[in-house]
């Protein structure tokens, strides 16, 4: 008897068949208890039909959505608490800021935990986990040595920190838990990191060239072009952060729109693989590579 070879695409067909009955009931909530209509103790469902526009607004502008539907008290438990948080964070930012801070804390906790986990395992004869992390470290060390030169190897921790933070942030979008989103989807996070990168560039430019030569650099090639040079320096921070923000936000919107069009059957997995895993890794790498290149342009002669 010949054994039938297992085909990879059969997995997707099986998933589709399993998901089909669930996907038709996506807009319904299951309750257990006494049914208010009949008075019997049983399972019963209520339906909340949502349009695509409402789904997008709930995902990307949670405060506006909750206020329009009048459920803004339900997020914090009471409307009084919501008002208190709104006074603290600002008008219309109570839920969005809370969600952002929550995911940022998740990213920080992941790396705090991993740091202690690795520190425990440091040995002269390396264990498996130590080798895995040393591989990542030495890859970025080689990158820094290639771009900046052997004597500036101490930039490695900064560069590696940027990469690991952005990469972990982008990977958070892959976890299907409600409320977990990429922190980089909010413009404030990439913009803050872009400003940090530009400040680092200018600090080391002044340290390397001296303040006189640094200021003279703005008057090149002619002295009245100084405002243009200044705008060029500012646009570094804007372009580096908008690139990351636009990629992640665009990917998230495309995933949401396409997967609600196909009723969340199978296709979101492939979309998450491309926009979450591939684009997230590439953009994290590009952010670190560009901040490294900006430093190299100022420091190398």
């Amino acid at each position, binding site marked *: 008897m010949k054994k039938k070879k297992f085909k990879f695409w059969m997995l997707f067909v099986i998933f589709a068949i399993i998901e089909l009955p669930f996907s038709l009931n996506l807009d319904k909530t299951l309750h257990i208890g006494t049914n208010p209509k009949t008075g019997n103790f049983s399972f019963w469902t209520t339906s909340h039909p949502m349009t695509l526009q409402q789904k997008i607004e709930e995902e*990307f*502008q949670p405060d506006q959505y909750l206020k329009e539907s009048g459920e803004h008290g339900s997020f914090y438990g009471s409307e009084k608490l919501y008002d208190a948080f709104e006074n603290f964070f600002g008008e219309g930012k109570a839920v969005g800021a809370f969600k952002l801070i929550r995911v940022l804390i998740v990213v920080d906790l992941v790396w705090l935990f991993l740091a202690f986990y690795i520190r425990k395992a440091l040995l002269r004869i390396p264990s498996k986990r130590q080798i895995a992390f040393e591989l990542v470290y030495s890859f970025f060390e080689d990158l820094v040595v290639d771009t900046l030169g052997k004597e500036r190897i101490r930039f490695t921790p900064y560069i590696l920190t940027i990469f690991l933070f952005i990469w972990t942030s982008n990977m958070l979008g892959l976890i299907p838990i409600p409320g977990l989103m990429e922190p980089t989807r909010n413009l404030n996070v990439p913009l803050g990191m872009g400003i940090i990168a530009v400040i680092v560039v200018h600090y080391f430019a002044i340290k390397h060239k001296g303040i006189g030569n640094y200021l003279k650099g703005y008057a090149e090639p002619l002295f009245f072009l100084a405002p243009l040079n200044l705008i060029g320096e500012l646009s570094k921070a804007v*372009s580096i952060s*908008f*690139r990351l*923000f*636009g*990629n992640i*936000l*665009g990917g998230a*919107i495309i995933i949401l729109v396409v997967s609600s069009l196909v009723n969340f059957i199978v296709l979101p997995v492939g979309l998450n693989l491309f926009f979450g895993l591939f684009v997230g890794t*590439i*953009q994290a*790498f*590009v952010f670190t*590579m*560009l901040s490294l*290149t900006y430093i190299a342009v100022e420091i190398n002669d």
Partner: protein
Amino acid sequence: MQGMEFVAKAAALLGSGICMGIGALGPGLGEGFVAGKACEGIARSPENANLITRTMLVGQAVSESTGIYSLVIALLLIFST
């Protein structure tokens, strides 16, 4: 939604479509060109494949930024009008 507001919303949606369509042209051409050149480079000197791929990715990301700007503008047009 009445009168002028309706017209403004319709114009914003149309504008965002045109913005995304034209804005995607340039980065698409540029990235394809860079990838093709990188292929030629790797075929000529396979020992430099790592360096070429890294430089290609950074170059593509930089040329992609105009497309990302048009995406941000299109999103602003859709959501803020």
